[in-house]
């Protein structure tokens, strides 16, 4: 197979079937565009490097798990992941506590263990499990849109192209899916908080 001339879709299929060279070609082909996109948002080379790495780790995981929905839109999908990770980066920075200069400084007032302890991890897993069960009760059309948006990380434009409905319909289905999920939570008396 001529990797240079191969389409993204063909390379993705090759990679899913276990050919690691296909990934190398895909990264080489798109690295400049994706990295430049990230840098244009964060203006920091080290952060761009981290976000770029996280983006492709997510791409590799999704492809290897067989959860990628091929529609010949590899680059927009990767860009979307990068975009979401850039937003996450800014959100994290916003949440970073600021040091207040007082006489009796205590380092633990600034630093805290951000990792989940075992109890919180179990609760988080339980919540995710409950939510997955709830989602199954949604009507088919709402379930489809919600899964594509949340689990496959697709944009509403991609969802509308994939399902053959307008963007507004896809948005409406997402809205009703969330409303129905809230109703189901109430109906089952679930408490989905940490």
């Amino acid at each position, binding site marked *: 197979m001529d990797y240079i001339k191969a389409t993204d879709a063909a390379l993705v299929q090759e990679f899913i079937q276990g050919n*690691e060279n296909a*990934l*190398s070609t895909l*990264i*080489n082909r798109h*690295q*400049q565009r994706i*990295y*430049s996109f990230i*840098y*244009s948002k964060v203006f920091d080379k080290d952060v*761009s*490097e981290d976000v*770029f*790495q996280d983006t*492709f*780790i997510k791409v*590799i*995981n999704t492809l*290897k*798990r067989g959860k990628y929905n091929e529609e010949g839109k590899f680059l927009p999908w990767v860009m979307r992941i990068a975009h979401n990770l850039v937003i996450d980066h800014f959100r994290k920075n916003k949440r970073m506590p600021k040091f207040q200069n007082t006489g009796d400084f205590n380092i633990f007032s600034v630093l805290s263990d951000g990792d989940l302890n075992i109890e919180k991890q179990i609760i988080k897993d339980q919540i995710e499990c409950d939510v997955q069960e709830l989602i199954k009760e949604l009507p088919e059309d709402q379930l489809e849109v919600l899964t594509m948006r949340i689990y496959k990380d697709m944009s509403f434009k991609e969802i509308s192209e994939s399902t053959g409905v307008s963007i507004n319909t896809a948005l409406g289905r997402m809205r009703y899916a969330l409303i129905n999920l809230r109703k189901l939570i109430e109906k089952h008396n679930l408490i989905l908080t940490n």
Partner: protein
Amino acid sequence: MEHLYTKPSIGEQLNKLNPKKETLQFLLNYSKALRINKYKQLSFEMILN
């Protein structure tokens, strides 16, 4: 011959940016090391050295 002292535009500067080779190598090695085994509805991730 006159010298040009103008800086390239931000767009031009951005077009020349690339990630480090180490980052790319890490990603390729990560991909080679990652194995995902599926058993019924469960999937197990393994990083093989």
